[in-house]
């Protein structure tokens, strides 16, 4: 069942989204050659507490139930697609594609957003990968209209990404979001149009295309979290939390 939110709930998600976007923007500005990814995590965690919120990813349980996600932000560099764990030993270098995925809880409601920063000097293909992934997210958001079907979002993303010769990662999906980080439905980034539930106003989704420069196949490393492309080629990831609205969806994780 997809939960339709009240305007009160959406207001809370707007605040969570605002904090998420603000911190994500600040962390993105820290992405420079020579910076260890652990520093991004320390900053994000401190800022979250300062703004009276709770990091949404920290201690998120692994499907096995044995371990929990150890950090507040996911930092995934190049062939790492998502869920990269920040580390003192992982240092950002020139030419890297650094994906940052971050979320907070404020007043019991979640915000979730991601972006990829290219560290200059970037080659053309990597720059194109960034632009295409970002545009794919906006194509997905555009397809999220009342009356449309869920898979219209999936199809919009896939069609755009594949028309540029990139691979759309299938192992991870967008998701409903609200008073939990992951709610129904799952939102795949691939598939035919016109399938799945009909979208209604005030549904809230996190749409997040993950795009690989080469093959879309990924595997999860033995740390249980980090997903990497099987062919080792770089990937990018953009995500927003949105509310379905008549006309155009409202993006909750946008900075003013």
């Amino acid at each position, binding site marked *: 069942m997809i939960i339709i939110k009240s305007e009160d709930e959406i207001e809370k998600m707007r605040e969570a989204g605002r904090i998420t976007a603000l911190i994500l923007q600040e962390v993105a500005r820290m992405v420079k050659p020579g910076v260890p990814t652990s520093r991004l995590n320390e900053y994000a965690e401190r800022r979250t507490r300062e703004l009276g919120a709770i990091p949404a990813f920290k201690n998120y349980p*692994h*499907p*096995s*139930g*044995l*371990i929990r996600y150890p950090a507040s932000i996911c930092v995934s560099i190049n062939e790492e697609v998502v869920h990269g764990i920040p580390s003192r030993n992982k240092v950002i270098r020139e030419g890297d594609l650094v994906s940052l995925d971050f979320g907070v809880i404020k007043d019991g409601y979640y915000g979730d957003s991601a972006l990829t920063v290219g560290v200059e000097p970037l080659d053309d293909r990597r720059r194109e990968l960034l632009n295409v992934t970002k545009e794919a997210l906006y194509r997905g958001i555009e397809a999220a209209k009342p009356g449309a079907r869920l898979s219209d979002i999936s199809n919009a993303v896939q069609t755009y990404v594949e028309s540029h010769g990139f691979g759309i990662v299938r192992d991870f999906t967008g998701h409903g979001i609200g008073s939990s980080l992951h709610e129904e439905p799952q939102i795949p980034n691939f598939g035919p149009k016109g399938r799945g539930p009909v979208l209604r106003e005030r549904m809230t989704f996190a749409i997040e295309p993950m795009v690989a420069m080469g093959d879309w*196949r990924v*595997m*999860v*490393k*033995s*740390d*249980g979290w980090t997903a990497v492309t*099987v062919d080792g080629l770089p990937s990018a990831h953009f995500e927003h939390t949105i509310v379905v609205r008549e006309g155009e969806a409202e993006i909750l994780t946008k900075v003013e």
Partner: protein
Amino acid sequence: MGRSDDFIQLKGTITEALPNATFRVKLETGHLILAHVSGRMRKNFIRLLPGDKVLVEISKYDPKKGRIIYRFSR
């Protein structure tokens, strides 16, 4: 798909030797699991005793069982 896909590796300590090259291992996370010895360790006659620190590979689909793939030096 890569070999390591769907497996997570965790450190633990052997608490009990059971029949059939099976051991009870206490993971760093505090969980107790049953673990078999990997074929490569058996082939190379790596002996395991209670108290040994080991690396265990665990499927996320059956987190109660694992394979011991490495014994850290004593």
